[in-house]
């Protein structure tokens, strides 16, 4: 995919008079010597895997190998069996699907890394929950996931999508940005609104640290997924109203990169500071690893 910036993406869409997912699926097909249908078929398999992960995750309360996390999705569903969430059923669905996915990840279930395993519960939760409630067909979901992937791929030209390189802003942060763009497209936003949603989501997660307790993809990663899924929805709602990021998206991504470089390595997946070295975290580490 030879599109390095969002400005180039906009130009490409305008030149070809096509939408983001149409441009990207054309490029993906030609880069890999396959046809567009084959690209879409592959994306479809990813969507189906995401759905099956949610289904399995919602019926399990098995703990992780660390015997620590894994039963939060069950707690959430128990609450919603007799309480409505403040923002209604779709809100319930999004955070439930998100927890179901990320909890399947920690118990060694099958997930789609999106963009990483520790952030796998953000994009699918929103695309699938919204599609169910708005009766969006499979093609719409495939279009949304292609757009999400395109956003992640363009960001990764400047920022390596790894907590060890740029902190959690590059994992759950980028997942939320991908999700905000994909949702905005599904809800009928134009390319400018899509890119503004991405910018708004990303801008508000600058400097997010990666300080996993005991080095595991559990605390704070698990709960960060549902929380940032809703963050993505908020960003999308703002953008759909025509609210713009005053800083253009490409410049926001430059800021993500610079922030990642300036962050101490102690806060980038090394578990040498932050939550990972709190008293409770160190006690848990002693208990799990001895």
């Amino acid at each position, binding site marked *: 995919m030879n599109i390095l910036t969002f400005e180039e993406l906009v130009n490409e869409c305008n030149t070809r008079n096509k939408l983001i997912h149409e441009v990207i699926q054309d490029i993906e097909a030609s880069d890999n010597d396959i046809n567009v249908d084959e690209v879409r078929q592959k994306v479809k398999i990813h969507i189906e895997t995401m759905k099956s992960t949610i289904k399995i995750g919602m019926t399990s309360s098995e703990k992780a190998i660390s015997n620590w996390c894994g039963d939060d999705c069950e707690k959430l569903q128990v609450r919603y069996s007799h309480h409505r969430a403040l923002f209604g059923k779709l809100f319930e669905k999004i955070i439930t699907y998100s927890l179901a996915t990320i909890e399947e990840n920690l118990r060694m279930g099958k997930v789609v890394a999106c963009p990483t395993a520790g952030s796998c519960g953000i994009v699918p939760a929103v695309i699938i929950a919204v599609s169910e409630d708005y009766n969006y067909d499979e093609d719409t979901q495939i279009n949304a996931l292609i757009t999400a992937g395109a956003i992640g791929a363009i960001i990764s030209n400047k920022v390596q999508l790894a907590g060890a390189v740029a902190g959690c802003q590059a994992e759950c942060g980028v997942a939320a940005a991908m999700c905000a763009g994909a949702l905005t497209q599904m809800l009928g936003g134009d390319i400018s609104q899509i890119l503004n949603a991405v910018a708004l989501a990303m801008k508000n997660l600058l400097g997010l640290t990666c300080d996993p307790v005991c080095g*595991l993809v559990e605390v704070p990663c698990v709960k960060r997924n549902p929380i940032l899924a809703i963050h993505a929805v908020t960003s999308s709602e703002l953008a759909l109203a025509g609210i713009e990021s005053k800083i253009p998206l490409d410049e926001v991504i430059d800021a993500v990169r610079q922030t990642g470089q300036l962050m101490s390595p102690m806060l980038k997946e090394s578990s040498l500071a932050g939550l990972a070295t709190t008293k409770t975290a160190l006690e848990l580490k002693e208990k799990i690893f001895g």
Partner: protein
Amino acid sequence: MKQKGLFDVISPIMIGPSSSHTAGAIRLGLMARAIYNNSINCVEFTLYNSFAQTGKGHGTDKGLLAGILGHRVDDVKTKNIFSIADIEYVFNYKEDLSRHPNSVDIKINNEMMISGDSIGAGEIKITSINGFSVNLAGQYHTILLMYKDKPGMISQVSKIIQDKSINIASFHCDRDGKGGTASMYFALDAEPVDSIINDIKRIDDVYFVTKVRKLD
């Protein structure tokens, strides 16, 4: 650097919980299996640094073993691999700060030692085979050989590849000393047919040759 595509971001479909510590571990095992390319009876894994410290919580040990046994990154059997593995295996845990944070040595049947790193987002790098430095990421079909260091070897091997009209994406060679043992590998744009491997085998003083399929 290779430009990222759609499926570098939305992927892999994998067993959790960590792309580097689980999917990367499985792919290191798969690469070692492909390089050894023979039946495996016993394996000794030595995990370093972060792999050693947090590997258990991430199923790194299970992933390495699953990969050696040929299970792909999305195979749910990985979770219970200890109860289904039918080979001998042992895990050692070490700290060596000169090594990559997520690094492993894989000794197969006490005759081949393969080292590799999990470099993030499920991507891996095989860094040495029996002490020879290599750089195999599984992104290309690769031909790998060990031979006696002497003039003309590179041209003989590349001619065999060229005769089948396969494009060479990259090439590297190394040796332990002049006239000693040398290693060579070619990253190719297409999968080499078996006759290429057989033809290379017939060259005098080639000790070992194998093809390593690119990882899915």
